[in-house]
Every structure is written in structure tokens, then in C-alpha cells.
């Protein structure tokens, strides 16, 4: 599985990477971007199965990036997870419209993210079978 992490905090990306490595998830590569525009660029170049993205970022927000993704047939099978401080009901409803599979609110413990990753990996295997 190739995973793309999009967050404007280098430390948050590093923490997510660390949790991915601790999770029981088969990982081929972990890609990183610091905003939505960089994220889209990486998605164009690489075959990514799981996207973990923040919302509030400079240049292009996570919501804007997810809107672009939802309009492109190429990324129909991409699993999308939001990891954001924005826990508003408005944002959660918007995420549901953008085919987001999980909305993880910051702050979260590493164990919560690990469980989300394991569940997504299990679903991926089940869908493949």
C-alpha cells in the first residue's frame, strides 16, 4: 500500500509516519506533502491507495484538494482520511460528501490512529478478496 500524508506541520507528518510503521499495515511507500497542491502533484505521479490529510493548510486546503480528487475518476478507489483540528458538524458533513472514510479529530492518541489504519487495511483486504 502507498500512503500519502498531507499536513503543513512537518512534526505532525513525522508522528503519523511513526504510527504507520507501528501499525499492522503493509506499506510500500509513504509520501509527504505540506499542502493540498503538493498533494495533488504527488497523486498525479504516484499510485496511492490511502490519503491522510489535514484541512487547514496554506496554498491549497485539504477540503479543496479533496474536491479535486472527488471530481477525478482516476482516484475513485483512493481511501481518504481527514486528520484535523476542525471537528465542526459543518466540516464533518462536507467530508461525508467528499467520500471521506474516516474523520479523525486532533488531538488524538497514536493508538487511535493505529486502530483506524488497521481497520482500513482490513477493509482493503476484504474488498480485494
Amino acid at each position, binding site marked *: 500500500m502507498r500512503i500519502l500524508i498531507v499536513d503543513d506541520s*512537518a512534526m505532525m507528518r513525522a508522528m503519523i509516519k*511513526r504510527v504507520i510503521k507501528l501499525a499492522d499495515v503493509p506499506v510500500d511507500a509513504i509520501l509527504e506533502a505540506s499542502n493540498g497542491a503538493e498533494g495533488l502533484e504527488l497523486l498525479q505521479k504516484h499510485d496511492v491507495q490511502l490519503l491522510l490529510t489535514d484541512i487547514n493548510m496554506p496554498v491549497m486546503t485539504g477540503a479543496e484538494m479533496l474536491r479535486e480528487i472527488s471530481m477525478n475518476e482516476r482516484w475513485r478507489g483512493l481511501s481518504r482520511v481527514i486528520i484535523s*483540528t*476542525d*471537528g465542526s458538524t459543518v466540516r464533518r458533513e462536507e467530508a461525508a460528501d467528499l467520500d471521506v472514510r474516516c474523520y479523525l*479529530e*486532533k488531538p488524538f492518541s497514536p493508538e487511535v490512529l493505529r486502530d483506524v489504519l488497521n481497520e482500513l487495511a482490513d477493509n482493503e483486504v476484504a474488498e480485494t478478496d
Partner: protein
Amino acid sequence: MSSTNLPTTKLPKLTDAEAATAMFEAVRAVAEQSFFAVAEPGDDRTFHAAAAKVPRWLVATVRFEQGPIAGAVSCTLPENLANGLFDAFTGRDPGEPTPVSTLVHDLVGEFSNMVCGAWLTRVESGRTFTLSHPSVEPAVTPGHAGDMRLVAAIDDLPVAVDLRLRPAQA
């Protein structure tokens, strides 16, 4: 504890006692869940006594905006607490080389971002706010209170969280 910059219908909800309680709950949630640290409520006297022993601070500010509501949340932490939070967040062994200041600043910015977002979710969950990328500055004093100041202790070290309200940009 008051401001005249915003419509009065909006101000009470962001600066009243309930909002202050929500701010502490946000700080506690961030400290405990993401940094494995203990946050306790504080008072001005204890804060100033502890603050007098702190040589260097970091001030991380996140601006927020949604329609007529705009402002900024600043978290002011002692530099040694920032380094401790860095170790907790990254799993860095204290024997490893000291992290460069840009990474510590990034982490304190993320701390402030989480506090601001968690607080706004608690006080205005029906609105979605735009948050700025955090700015982080060193300081030699913990500065002055804005429209609302919360003082607390994280791992027994003094922390101040200031809320400043301003009119939204046209």
C-alpha cells in the same frame, strides 16, 4: 475579559466563563492525548510566581476567521517545556542530539493549532473556521493578556493561553 471590536452578540460566547472552561478542556485534551503530559488549571498568583523563574518562552499564535468572527489564540510556553513536549510527541530519547529550533517551533505551532481548533469545536461546533498556519516567536516574558487569558500548568510548568478578538477582514 472584554472587547469592543466585535458585534456584542458574538463576544459573550467566546470570552465568557463557559468559553474559558472550554479553553482549559482543549489544553488538557491536547496535552494528555497528543503529548502524554498532565495539564492542571492555574491562577494568576501561582502563574506569575512560576513565570518569574522562566528565562525563555515560545509564543505560538494561530489566527481564526469565519464570517464576522475573527481572532487569534496564542499559547505561551517555557522553552524547556516545549523541548519536553517535543520528546513526548516524537519519542526522542533525551540522549539523542538536541532537535533544531525550527522543528521545536513547528511542534509548538502544532500544539497551538490543536488547542485553537479543539477550543473552537467546543464553543462553536456549528461553524467551520479557517485557521492560519501558526507563527512562533521567542519571548523573554509571557506577555500580556488579550480579551481572555487562561493560565494553567503543564507538567508543573506555567502556560498562558491568550485569546484576542478582532473584526474580520473585509
